[in-house]
């Protein structure tokens, strides 16, 4: 549901598997290129979406949900891009566990996301997780 009347929505549904994360990155690269983003900001969005999808894929593998799908929904507004990543990868358990980047690469992924986009929220949904990221276009 677009939050503003002028927003355009692009939605992509793909298998929650490692080989499809690159497809999501390509799609969001196209979407972000339509925004008034700098080259670096487009890269930021691509990396953040890649990381969010990677986390979904890792949880799907852990929870035996590799047959599920990820829905990538982006809402293009004049001043911001809102990206929703909805998975059915099962429960992520307790967040905030300590661990190093090698054992818990998703910690590094989560760090990257927070550094790359302006807002990020992660909420459990029925059978999975909903990650919402917002990146604002700087008005120059």
């Amino acid at each position, binding site marked *: 549901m677009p939050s503003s009347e002028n927003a355009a929505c692009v939605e992509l549904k793909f298998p929650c598997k*490692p080989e499809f994360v*690159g497809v999501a990155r390509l799609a969001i690269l196209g979407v972000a290129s339509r925004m008034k983003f700098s080259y670096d900001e487009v890269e930021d969005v691509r990396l953040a979406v890649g990381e969010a999808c*990677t986390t979904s894929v890792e949880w799907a593998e852990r929870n035996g949900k590799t047959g599920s799908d990820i829905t990538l929904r982006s809402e293009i507004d004049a001043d911001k891009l809102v990206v929703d990543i909805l998975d059915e990868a099962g429960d992520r358990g307790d967040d905030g566990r300590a661990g*190093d*980047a090698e054992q818990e*690469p998703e910690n*590094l*992924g989560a760090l*990257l996301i927070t*550094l790359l986009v302006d807002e990020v929220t992660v909420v459990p949904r029925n059978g999975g997780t909903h990650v919402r990221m917002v990146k604002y276009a700087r008005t120059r």
Partner: protein
Amino acid sequence: METRTVESELPIIELEGEVDVYTAPQLKQQMISLLESGAKELVVDLTKVDYLDSTALGVLIGGLKRMRERDGNMALVCPSPRIRRVFEITGLDKIFDIFNTPEEATESMGKETE
């Protein structure tokens, strides 16, 4: 992702393309083989890499850790500002020795072992 291991006194892993959740396991496998063959030093060349994510960073961190455990070291070659930025924003540029050319990387290794 393409990988190529250059057979020399100092092993160099050359990566090409996207190193992500799909392809990083290949890199991990290659590092494990090198470690099993007794390598203490390694150069990972990211010159031809156009995308690198946290999964790849995790594998590189693991490799560095293992090399250092055996008093060795690992150096990265990363001339691309876009790829280098991923190391910078995560602070990993302070942990890895990052060089612009394979020559600089291998030279740094030589100095450390002498």
